[in-house]
C-alpha cells in the first residue's frame, strides 16, 4: 500500500466552505415556523423558588408560550440522567431541564419563553415575576468542606460528594527513608473554555413520522440522543441528533445540557421547531467551567534530587452539580505520576459541591492541574537542593528502556496505567537544545541591561489519549467512484474531515479530493461517543483504516476475478485496481462499486456481499500515551509587572503524525490556552456566588498581541497499541503550558522570591512579589 497522504501536511478539505462563510453552525439553521427560546435564569446562587408568574409575559408582542418544568411535566419533570455514573455517587447529582424548586447557582434555568424572534423572547423575560427565597451560599470549596458550612444543596448532609484516592507502593516507607521531604500548597484556577461559538440547539418535531430532530453544538451528539431518548421514554431510532459545524468545543460542549433537553421538550410541547442560541453572558453563567483545586502535597527525593514519592490531598470545587460524574477530579488523579517513575504515591481528592456553575473537563481536563503541581514539585526540589531544574527531571523520568511502564496508578475505570512507548528525556533534551538554553545567561544579562527580568521555564508531561471503547467508521465507494467516510466522531475544528480522508485515500489509492467525510449525524452513522480526551485520531482514525482495508480487500477480490489475475498481483492506484507493473490491465473502483450496487436480475459475484463498503470499529482497549516537554522565556517589566512571553518551544511526541500541519495547529492552540490559564483567565465570584467576570472585558482571553510565536519539534514514536501508530494531540499543548510559564516567572523573579504556587498570575501579583523580594 502506498502512503501518499498519511504524514503529509495537506490543506484541509473543510476550509473552502468555512473560509467563504458557507459553514453551517447551529445558528445558521432556519426552519419554517421556527420559534425562538430565551431562558429565565436564577439571579441568586442558592434559593428556593416560591412563585413564577408569567401572566404579563404571555401578553407581550410575539410571545407564544412560557414554560416552567410544571408545564412540561408530561415529559417527566425529573433530574437529567448522569452522563458518567460513578460508583461513589450513589444517586446522580444533576439538575432538571428547568428548576422547579431549588436553584443552586446563578444562571440555573427556571423558565423559558418561546416567541417569534429572539429579541421578543428576551423582552418577555423581564416581565416574568419570579419570587425566590435566598438560601445560605457556599462559594468556596475550602469553606464547603468545613463542619457547619452552608450546604450547596439544602437536602444534602455534606458538600463533599466523594473522596477519590490513588495510591501505589508503601508511601510512608518511601518518605521515611528519603533523603529530603518538601511540602507545598497549590491553588489552581482554570476558568472556562470560551469556544468562540456559544452553545446552541434547534429541535424540530416531525409531525408525520413522529420523529424528533435535534441540531446541537455538541461534542457528544450521540450522548444527547441516548440520554434524551431515555428521558423521553423513546427509542433512540426516533431521535435524530446532528452536530453541524461547531465553533470550538474544548470540553464543556461534551456535556449533555439542560437547555438541550428543555428546547427538545418545548418543541414537542408546542409542535414547532424551536431554536435557542446562547449569548456570551449566558455562556459565562451556564456553560460548565473547570474551576478551582487546592492541593496540599509533600514530595520525597533522594540526595541526588530524584523524585521518589508524592503524597497529599486536594479539595476540588465541582460546582453545583455533577452532570459529568467525577470525571474531572478522576482525570486529575489518574494523571499522576506524570512522566516520573515514583516508588510510591498516595493522593486523595475531596470532591466538593459549591453554589457555582457546574464544572466539567476543559482542554486537558484535570491533567494540567496534575502537571502543574508535579512540575512545581520538581522545581521545588531543584530550588531547595540547588540543582538545575532539568537535572531533577532527567533523574526522575521514566526511562525509554522501561517501556512499556506500569506506573502503579489506575485509570478512571480502575485498570492499571501503563505507558506504551517514548523517550521522555529525549524530548527534554530536544527542547533545551532548540530554545538554546545554553545561551540563556547571555540573554538574561542583555535583558537586565535594559532593566528587564528574563526568566527561563520548562515543564514536561505525559498525556493519556485514545480513550475507548470505540469510535467507528464506515467507508463506501459510490458507483461514481467517490469515497464516502461516515463516522460518529464530531468535529469542532480538529480537521477530522481531512485526517480521516487521508487515511481512507491511502488505503484505497484515490485522490484526496475524491473523499468526503460525513460525521456526527445519527441518521448517517449509527453509533458515536464523544470528541473528547484526544481520542478521535486513535479511535476513529484506526476504524477508518480497518474499514478501508476491508473495502480494499473486497475490491481486489472482485478485480482479481474480472482481470483473471492473482490477488497478490493487484494494487490500488488512481481510483483503479490494476495489475502491478501492467497499469493497462485495470478495473475502476467505480465499476466495481456499480457491480456491487446491483441491478435487478443481474447476479453479483457469488459469496460477495453487496456494496463496495465496510464498517470498522477499532477496539480501543489500551491507551496511547503522548508526551512532551516545553520551554519558554518570559520578560518581566519590574515596574508594571507586565510579563511578555518572548520565546516558546515545544517538543512533542504523539506517535505517527497523520497531518503535521493539523497537529501543529492543535499544539499551538493548546499552548495558548495554557498561557491564558497562567496569565489571564480568571472567573471571579463574590462571597454570594455572584459572577464578577461575565464579559470579555472582565474575563481576559489571550489575544494576538500578547501571544508569542511557538516553535514545535516532533518526535515520532509510533504507538504499538493501534494500527496507525497514532497518539492523540489535542491537549498535549495545554497540559504543561501553565506550569512552563509559571516556572519562567519564578526564574525571572530570582532565587529569593516567594515560591509561586498558583495561577493565574496578574501583573499586580508580580509587582507584589518583586517588592517582597527586594525588601
Amino acid at each position, binding site marked *: 500500500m502506498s502512503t501518499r497522504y498519511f504524514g503529509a501536511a495537506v490543506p484541509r478539505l*473543510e476550509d473552502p466552505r468555512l*473560509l*467563504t462563510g458557507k459553514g453551517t453552525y447551529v445558528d445558521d439553521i432556519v426552519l419554517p415556523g421556527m420559534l425562538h427560546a430565551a431562558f429565565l435564569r436564577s439571579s441568586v446562587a442558592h434559593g428556593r423558588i416560591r412563585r413564577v408568574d408569567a401572566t404579563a409575559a404571555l401578553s407581550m408582542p410575539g410571545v407564544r408560550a412560557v414554560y416552567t418544568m410544571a408545564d412540561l411535566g408530561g415529559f417527566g419533570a425529573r433530574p437529567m440522567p448522569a452522563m458518567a455514573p460513578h460508583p461513589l455517587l450513589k444517586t446522580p447529582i444533576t439538575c432538571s431541564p428547568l428548576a422547579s424548586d431549588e436553584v443552586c447557582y446563578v444562571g440555573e434555568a427556571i423558565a423559558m419563553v418561546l416567541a417569534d424572534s429572539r429579541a421578543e423572547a428576551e423582552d418577555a423575560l423581564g416581565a416574568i415575576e419570579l419570587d425566590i427565597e435566598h438560601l445560605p451560599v457556599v462559594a468556596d470549596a475550602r469553606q464547603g468542606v468545613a463542619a457547619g458550612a452552608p450546604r450547596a444543596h439544602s437536602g444534602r448532609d455534606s458538600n463533599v460528594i466523594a473522596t477519590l484516592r490513588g495510591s501505589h507502593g508503601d508511601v510512608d516507607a518511601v518518605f521515611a527513608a528519603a533523603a529530603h521531604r518538601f511540602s507545598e500548597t497549590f491553588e489552581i484556577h482554570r476558568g472556562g473554555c470560551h469556544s468562540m461559538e456559544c452553545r446552541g440547539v434547534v429541535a424540530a418535531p416531525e409531525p408525520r413520522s413522529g420523529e424528533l430532530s435535534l441540531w446541537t453544538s455538541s461534542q457528544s451528539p450521540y450522548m444527547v440522543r441516548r440520554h434524551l431518548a431515555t428521558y423521553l421514554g423513546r427509542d433512540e431510532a426516533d431521535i435524530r441528533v446532528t452536530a453541524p*459545524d461547531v*465553533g*470550538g468545543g474544548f470540553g464543556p460542549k461534551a456535556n449533555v445540557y439542560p437547555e438541550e433537553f428543555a428546547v427538545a421538550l418545548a418543541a414537542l410541547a408546542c409542535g414547532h421547531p424551536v431554536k435557542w442560541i446562547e449569548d456570551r453572558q449566558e455562556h459565562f453563567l451556564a456553560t460548565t467551567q473547570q474551576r478551582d483545586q487546592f492541593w496540599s502535597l509533600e514530595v520525597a527525593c533522594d540526595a541526588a534530587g530524584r523524585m521518589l514519592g508524592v503524597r497529599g490531598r486536594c479539595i476540588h470545587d465541582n460546582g453545583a452539580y455533577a452532570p459529568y460524574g467525577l470525571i474531572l477530579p478522576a482525570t486529575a488523579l489518574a494523571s499522576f505520576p506524570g512522566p516520573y517513575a515514583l516508588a510510591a504515591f498516595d493522593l486523595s481528592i475531596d470532591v466538593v459541591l459549591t453554589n457555582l456553575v457546574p464544572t466539567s473537563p476543559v482542554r486537558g481536563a484535570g491533567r494540567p492541574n496534575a502537571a502543574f503541581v508535579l512540575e512545581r514539585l520538581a522545581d521545588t526540589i531543584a530550588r531547595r537542593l540547588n540543582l538545575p531544574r532539568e537535572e531533577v527531571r532527567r533523574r526522575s523520568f521514566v526511562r525509554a528502556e522501561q517501556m512499556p511502564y506500569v506506573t502503579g496508578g489506575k485509570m478512571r475505570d480502575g485498570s492499571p496505567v501503563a505507558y506504551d512507548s517514548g523517550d521522555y528525556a529525549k524530548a527534554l533534551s530536544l527542547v533545551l537544545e532548540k530554545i538554546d538554553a545554553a545561551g540563556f545567561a547571555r540573554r538574561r544579562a542583555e535583558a537586565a541591561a535594559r532593566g528587564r527580568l528574563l526568566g527561563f521555564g520548562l515543564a514536561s508531561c505525559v498525556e493519556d489519549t485514545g480513550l475507548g471503547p470505540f469510535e467507528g467508521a464506515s467507508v463506501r465507494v459510490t458507483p461514481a467512484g467517490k469515497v464516502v467516510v461516515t463516522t460518529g466522531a464530531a468535529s469542532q475544528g480538529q480537521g477530522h474531515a481531512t485526517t480521516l480522508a487521508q487515511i481512507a485515500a491511502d488505503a484505497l489509492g484515490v485522490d484526496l479530493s475524491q473523499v468526503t467525510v460525513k460525521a456526527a449525524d445519527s441518521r448517517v452513522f449509527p453509533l458515536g461517543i464523544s470528541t473528547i480526551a484526544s481520542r478521535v485520531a486513535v479511535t476513529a482514525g484506526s476504524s477508518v483504516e480497518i474499514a478501508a482495508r476491508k473495502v480494499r480487500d473486497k475490491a481486489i477480490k472482485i478485480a482479481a476475478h474480472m482481470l483473471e489475475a492473482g490477488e497478490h498481483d493487484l494494487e490500488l492506484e488512481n481510483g483503479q485496481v490494476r495489475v502491478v507493473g501492467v497499469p493497462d490491465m485495470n478495473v475502476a473502483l467505480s465499476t466495481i462499486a456499480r457491480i456491487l450496487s446491483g441491478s435487478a436480475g443481474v447476479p453479483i459475484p457469488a459469496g460477495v456481499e453487496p456494496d463496495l463498503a465496510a464498517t470498522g470499529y477499532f477496539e480501543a482497549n489500551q491507551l496511547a500515551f503522548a508526551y512532551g516537554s516545553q520551554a519558554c522565556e518570559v520578560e518581566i517589566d519590574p515596574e508594571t509587572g507586565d510579563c511578555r512571553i518572548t520565546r516558546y518551544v515545544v517538543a512533542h511526541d504523539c506517535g505517527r503524525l497523520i497531518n503535521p500541519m493539523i497537529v501543529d495547529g492543535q499544539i*499551538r*492552540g493548546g499552548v495558548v490556552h495554557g498561557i491564558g490559564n497562567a496569565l489571564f483567565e480568571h472567573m471571579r465570584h463574590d462571597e454570594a456566588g455572584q459572577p464578577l467576570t461575565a464579559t*470579555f472585558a472582565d474575563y481576559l482571553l489571550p489575544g494576538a498581541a500578547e501571544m508569542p510565536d511557538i516553535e514545535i519539534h516532533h518526535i515520532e514514536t509510533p504507538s504499538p497499541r493501534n494500527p496507525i501508530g497514532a497518539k492523540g494531540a489535542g491537549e498535549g499543548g495545554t497540559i504543561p503550558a501553565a506550569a512552563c510559564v509559571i516556572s519562567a516567572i519564578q526564574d525571572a523573579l530570582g532565587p529569593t522570591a516567594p515560591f509561586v504556587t498558583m495561577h493565574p498570575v496578574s501583573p499586580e501579583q508580580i509587582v507584589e512579589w518583586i517588592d517582597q523580594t527586594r525588601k
Partner: protein
Amino acid sequence: MSARKINLTVNGRAVEAEVEARVNLADFLRQTLALTGTHLGCEHGVCGACTVIVDGRPARACLMLAVQADGAKVETVESLGTPEALSELQLAFRDRHALQCGFCTPGMLMTIEALLRVEAAPTREQIRDVLSGNLCRCTGYQAIVDAALDAAEARRGTR
C-alpha cells in the same frame, strides 16, 4: 417597535429594507439577508467575529445598528471569494492552517482584508496589533499572522 426604511450596498448589491431601529447590523445581515458568514461570538464588541467592512473600514456588526448603515457600503466575508475561487487571503489562510473551527475566521479575514488595503507590507507586529480586536480560541494566532503576511506578499506580487 418603530421600523425604518434603509438603503445600502451589501457586497456590491443594492439593498432596500425595513428594519426595526434596534436590530444590529449583524442580525440584519444574517437574518434579513441570509448572509450567515458573519458570526456573533460575544455581542458586546470584544471578540471581533462579526467584523465586516463598512465604507472601507472594519466595523463590529454587533455594535452597529442596521439603521446606522443607511447609505453605507457594507462588505462581508461572502464578498471575498467562493469555495471554487478563494481570494489570495483565503488561500493563504488555507495554506497556513490559519483556521480550525472556522467560527472567528470571517471576522479575522475582514479585519486583515481592511488592513491590507491600507498597508501593503505590514509587519508581524502590526498584524498582531490589528488582530488584538479579534479573538481566536483554536489557532493561537501565529498561523493567522503568517497567512496575513503571505497574502500581503501575494498581493504585492500581482500588482
